[in-house]
C-alpha cells in the first residue's frame, strides 16, 4: 500500500534525523559527563562548542580539509575549557560564574572574529564538509538502516565514545581516580591523588568533546558558521548528563531522546501538521525542563559536584 510506504519513509527519515541531531548533543554531553564525574560542572561548554564551531570553519576553509577543521574545533574547545579550568579549578572560583563568563566571552569573541573575517552580513561560507559514510549492507536495513549506518564520521565517533567512556570510568584505575575526585575529594587527596590535576584533565576533555561537537554542527550539518549557532546546545548537553544520570550509556540514550524531540519538527512537517514552528523550536528546551523535573530529584549527582 502506498500509504504504508510513505509512513515507513517518514519514520526512517525521522530516525535518521534524530541520530544526526543527537550527535553534537551527545558528544558534548559525554565530555561533560567526564568533567562532572570529577566534581566540576562546566556550563562554559556552550562557549567551548561555539569556539569549536568557528575554529572548525576557519581551519576547514584555510586548509581545505574538513578533517583539519574537526581537529581545530576540538582544540579550540579545549582552549576554552583550559581558561575555565584556570579560574574554576586552579583558583577555585565559583564554577557557575566562571562558566557563564566563558560562554559570554565566546559569544563575543566568535561574533567579532566572524564579522571581522567574513563580513558583517555573513556571506555564506563554502566549506569542505564531512559527507555521510555508508556502511555497505547494513545501511540497507529497512527503517533503521539509514539512521545507524548512513551517517557522518562524528556520529560513528559518538557511537564508539559512549561505551569507551563507560568502560574508562567504570573499569579502569584512572576512571576510579576520576570518580574519587568527584565523590570524595578530601579522601582522594589523602590517598595521594592530585584532585586538581584530575579535574583539570577532565575539564579539558570535556572542552575537547564540546569543541568537536561544535565542529560537527558546522562541518557535518550546517555547512557554514553563524553567530550564536550553538543556540544553547551546550546547556542542553548538561541537561542530558542529568537525564542520563551521569552514566555514559544513559547519556547516550538521553541524547537520542533529545535528538528525536528536535526531529519531531521535520516529521510533523512531512505529515502536514500545522503547529506554529516556534513551538517546535522550543521543544528541546521544554523537553530539558520536563526531563530535569522528572529525574532531577532522584538522580544521584557526584557528591562534590560544583564544590571548589
Amino acid at each position, binding site marked *: 500500500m502506498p500509504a504504508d510506504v510513505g509512513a515507513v519513509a517518514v519514520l526512517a527519515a525521522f530516525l535518521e534525523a534524530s541520530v544526526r541531531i543527537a550527535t553534537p548533543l551527545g558528544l558534548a554531553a559525554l565530555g561533560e559527563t567526564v568533567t562532572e564525574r570529577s566534581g566540576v560542572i562546566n556550563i562554559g561548554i556552550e562557549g567551548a562548542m561555539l569556539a569549536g564551531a568557528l575554529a572548525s570553519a576557519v581551519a576547514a576553509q584555510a586548509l581545505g580539509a574538513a578533517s583539519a577543521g574537526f581537529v581545530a574545533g576540538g582544540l579550540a574547545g579545549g582552549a576554552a575549557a583550559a581558561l575555565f579550568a584556570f579560574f574554576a579549578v586552579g583558583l577555585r572560583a565559583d564554577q557557575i560564574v566562571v562558566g557563564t563568563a566563558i560562554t559570554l566571552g565566546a559569544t563575543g569573541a566568535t*561574533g567579532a572574529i566572524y564579522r571581522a573575517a567574513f563580513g558583517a552580513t555573513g556571506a555564506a561560507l563554502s566549506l569542505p564538509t564531512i559527507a555521510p559514510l555508508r556502511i555497505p549492507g547494513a545501511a540497507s536495513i529497512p527503517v533503521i538502516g539509514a539512521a545507524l549506518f548512513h551517517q557522518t564520521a562524528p556520529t560513528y565517533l559518538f557511537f564508539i565514545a559512549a561505551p569507551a567512556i563507560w568502560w574508562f570510568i567504570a573499569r579502569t584505575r584512572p576512571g576510579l581516580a576520576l570518580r574519587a575526585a568527584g565523590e570524595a575529594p578530601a579522601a582522594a587527596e589523602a590517598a595521594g591523588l592530585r584532585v586538581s590535576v584530575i579535574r583539570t584533565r577532565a575539564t579539558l576533555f570535556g572542552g575537547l568533546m564540546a569543541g568537536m561537537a561544535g565542529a560537527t554542527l558546522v562541518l557535518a550539518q550546517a555547512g557554514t558558521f553563524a553567530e550564536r549557532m550553538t543556540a544553547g546546545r551546550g546547556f542542553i548537553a548538561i*541537561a542530558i548528563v542529568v537525564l542520563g544520570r551521569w552514566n555514559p550509556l544513559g547519556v547516550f540514550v538521553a541524547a537520542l531522546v533529545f535528538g528525536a524531540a528536535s526531529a519531531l519538527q521535520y516529521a510533523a512537517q512531512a505529515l502536514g501538521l500545522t503547529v506554529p514552528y516556534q513551538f517546535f523550536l522550543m521543544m528541546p528546551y521544554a523537553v530539558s525542563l520536563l526531563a530535569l523535573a522528572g529525574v532531577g530529584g532522584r538522580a544521584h549527582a557526584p557528591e562534590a559536584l560544583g564544590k571548589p
Partner: protein
Amino acid sequence: MMDLILASLVRATPLLITGLAVAVAFRAGIWNIGAEGQFYAGAVMAAWIGTRWGLTSPFAALLLVPAAAALAGALWAAVPALLRRRYGVLEVITTIMLNFIAEHLVGFLVHGPLQEAGHTYPQSDPIAEVVRLTPLADSARLTWAFPAAVLLAVLAWVFIERTRPGLAMRAAGANPVAAAVSGRIDVGRVAWVSFLVSGAIAGLAGAAEVCGVTFALYERLSPGYGYTAIAVALFARLNPLAVIPSALFFGALEAGAAALQRSAGVPSVAVYAVEAAVILLVVGLQRARQLSDAR
C-alpha cells in the same frame, strides 16, 4: 558627546534593573541565569496591555503596567523556583532553558496573537500613548525609568542590609546549612521568595524597555541584557548600591561599542568578550586575595 552620555544612560537602565534582579538572587544563593527570560515575560505583558487593553487613564497605566510586568517576571521565575523547591533541580540549567523558550514564545507572539494590524512585520502594534513613559530629555529615550531604577537599587540595599528578612536572605545565601541549623530561618522559603522577587524585578526591566524605549514588542528585543546583568551584578560584588555605577559602566561600554561599530566598523558583539574579561578579572582577583589572606 551629550548623545553618547544619554545613550549610555538609556542602555544602563535595563542593565541596572536586571543587574539588581541578579544581585538579589545571587545574594540569596540562587543561580538565576534567567533574567533574560523574565525580562521578556515583563516585556510581553507590557506590550499586551499597551496594545490590547485600551487603557485611557495614565494613572491606571502607571499602576497596572509595572505590577503586571513584575507578576509576569515572577511567574516565569516560579517555574525554575518550583522545580528547585519541589524536585531539587539545579536552577542554572532550567533558567537558561526558559530563556530560550521565552525567546521563541516572543517569536510566536509577534508572528501570531500580538502581531501588528497589517500582519506584515514580525512585531506588535505600537503601544498606546498612555502607557509610554515620559522622557526626561527631548532628544533621547531617557525616561523616568532611570531614576526609578536608581530608587529601586536604594530600596533593595536598605532591604538586604538593614532589615530582618534581608538578613535571613543573606544568611541563607552565604551558608544555607548554618542558616537552617540555626532554626530561625526557613531556607527553602527564603530561597523561593528571593527567586520570585528576582524574577519580578527582571520583569520590570522588560516593561521599562517596551514602555520607554522600543514602544513595541519584537524578536531580539533584548541584546542579552539578562546575561550582561550577571557581569553588572558581579562587578558590583552583589551590592545593590554598587549596581548603579556598575550598570552605568556597562551601559557606557555597550553604548560606546554601538557607536564604535557605526563609526569605525568594530563589531559591537566584541563587548561581550570585554564583559567576560571583567567577570573573570573580578572573581580572579577576589579569589587571589582570599587565597593570600588564608596564608
